[in-house]
């Protein structure tokens, strides 16, 4: 029998060696789901992907304005998410964290395109940077507006998407894209003004 030593209550910590109970990832809390994903539970990873893919895809497809590329970048985003999730400490909300990764993946892609173009290697299949015309704009429902945004030149689109749709400040965009604050403001105002004109057509 274990002797007692005038024990005082201490720490409600769980034993680190506690074996996790088998839970269905689909029904569990976000923090539990993240724990399961951190331990590479395949089903949990799938549920996690299904829950968060739309958010990541929205920012990616708006920034790159090309659905095929966006699909590839969404895959890249989630591979990065799963590779780094052990570091995720819940300090930022998980949505914010994934959104930031997705945004960076998309902005890196735009940067690559710019470098390719500068090197004279721009492929004809890289669309939209020279102002692709929107087609079939009828009533200005959401999808039509999305298409108008996609038709903007890359820098104007980046500024409008990040500032007006996804809520970043001009300064944050300038910092992330390594551009001057006034350049970002000017890109944005030109983008907004172009969109207004396109919508009036």
């Amino acid at each position, binding site marked *: 029998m*274990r*002797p007692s*030593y005038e*024990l*005082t209550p*201490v*720490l409600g*910590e*769980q*034993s*680190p*060696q506690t074996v*996790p109970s088998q839970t269905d990832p689909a029904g569990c809390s976000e923090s539990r789901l993240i*724990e399961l994903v*951190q*331990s*590479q539970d*395949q089903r949990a*990873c*799938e549920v996690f*992907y299904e829950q968060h*893919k*739309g*958010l990541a*895809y*929205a920012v990616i497809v708006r920034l790159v304005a090309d*659905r095929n590329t*966006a*699909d590839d970048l*969404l*895959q890249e985003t*989630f*591979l990065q998410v*799963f*590779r*780094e999730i*052990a*570091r995720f400490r819940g300090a930022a909300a998980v949505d914010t964290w994934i959104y930031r990764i997705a945004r960076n993946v998309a902005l890196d892609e735009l940067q690559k395109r710019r470098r390719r173009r500068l090197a004279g290697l721009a492929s004809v299949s890289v669309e939209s940077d020279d102002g692709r015309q929107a087609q079939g704009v009828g009533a200005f429902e*959401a999808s039509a*507006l*999305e298409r108008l*945004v996609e038709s903007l030149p890359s820098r104007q689109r980046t500024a*409008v998407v990040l*500032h*007006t*749709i996804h*809520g970043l400040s*001009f300064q944050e965009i300038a910092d992330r894209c390594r551009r001057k604050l006034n350049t970002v*403001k*000017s890109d*944005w*105002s*030109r983008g*907004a*003004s172009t*969109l*207004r*004109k396109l*919508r*009036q057509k």
Partner: protein
Amino acid sequence: MTTHIDPEQIALYVDGALEGPSARAVSEHLKGCPQCRADQGDTSRLLADLAALPTSREPTRDLWPGIAATLAADTDTILANLRDAIGTRQIATATRLIDGLLDSLRRLQASDPNASALLNYFAQWMDLGFTDRDCEGMSALMLLRRSFARLPRHPWLGLRGTDIVHLRMVEGILAVYSEDYDNAIRHFSAVIGLELDVTDADLLVFSEWALARAYTRKGQYTKAIEHVEHALALADSAERSEMAAACAVLKAWLLFQTGKNDEAVALLNLAEAVLRETDDSLSLANIGSALGRIERRMGRYGASARLYVESIEQYRHCKHRRNHLARALVNLAFVNRLLAVRVESGQRDVDTGDADPTGDLRKQAAQALDEAEQIYGASRDGRGRGMVLLVRAYLEMDAGHWSRAEFAAAEAYELGRRCGDLVLKVRARVQQCRVVHTQRQVSQGDPLKAVLDAESVDAWIEEAMHLVATTELEHLRANTLTWRGITRLEYADQVADAHACCDQATQLLQTLNASDYALDELRLLEAMLGEAGPFARRPPMGLINRRR
């Protein structure tokens, strides 16, 4: 003719990005210009519509199968996650990842591309408190040894640099668990020596930390502190606050060894604040145990006992690292015995805490020792078993069981000799002197035994002095000097020698800010020196009062 405002300016105005005079100018103009006001309305609607676009959009096709296939083939991902979980002390996550890797470990082949990295992270995880955890029907330590045996041995010709680093780490960790600290130091130093090739900051932090731990176990504190400082700086620059906290715990211990008790306590509290955010019960229990040791050094035995009781409870959560629990049990037993002596000698002060003065502190001490002995019985921890015997010798001595006390101290020495543990050898030799001397004080025996005792005691204390001089354990050195003083005075009439020992011990204990049993024993030596002649007799603290 009216000049209208540029639409881009209107957009910036609507967005709130215009300031000062520009904003005022636009505002003034809008009041009198219906066309620009219409533009303003359009822009506002556009921005509102944009802001209202859905935050989520569906990809055009199902991408999950592609992601899943890439992930499945991605052992690097799992190992990267494992490394991060270990680095950030997310113990449960690391353990779940390890569970998923056990099968690969059991079937590990030298040709597996990630074999050495896998083994290294497994070894690091095991080091977090899982040596005895069941892994596929054997302990984690056994699985590590067996898997490692299947990989190529030194000099690792033809292996990649990173693989060599991983294998060195594994060899170092295995050497620590065989108590072969010189070999451990050799391997960890080699990893650090390869610094230019090691880009993984976590690996470097771990190596420096492990090196500091190995030097600490050898009693080489100057070297230990040098490496723990490196580890701390590296952990800081890599923003690994949990690893930094683990390093801080070791640094605090080393500061305590040089008498910087307040700094040590402050550092332990900082580390505790960081580690409380993790599920690293072992480190938290280690912190409690270190605080208990510091309180004991300051003579606050009641507070010390309470901290040990708390850390014992925490260690009980770490089911797979029983030796830490055993060590805390031995420490609790010792402090309970010290409390008992203090209570009996009428020194009960405010800080004896909840101790029952009539009570069974010694009984509790004996129970704790029994439990510790049982745990150590299953392990090969020579120092641990030796420490049980040393505290056992105190209890036997207090009960007047002189032969049993002598036997326990002698057995502890023998264990120290067999495992080459010189700290244990020193403690055992001092304990042997303590037992013989105490017996002599309370029962004037046979004159022949007295002559034999004098010879033994002289040899023991000289050996202890010689050994302790090779370490940096200042507290133990002070206590050994005290006992050398007592024995020189008592058995050889060497008053000058005894004075010299007393002076040196006083200086050491002052530097260490010690107010514990070592100081009590030094006071005893001082009293003996202060007596009229060198033959003056006076039993040590505690015993004199008990026998009244």
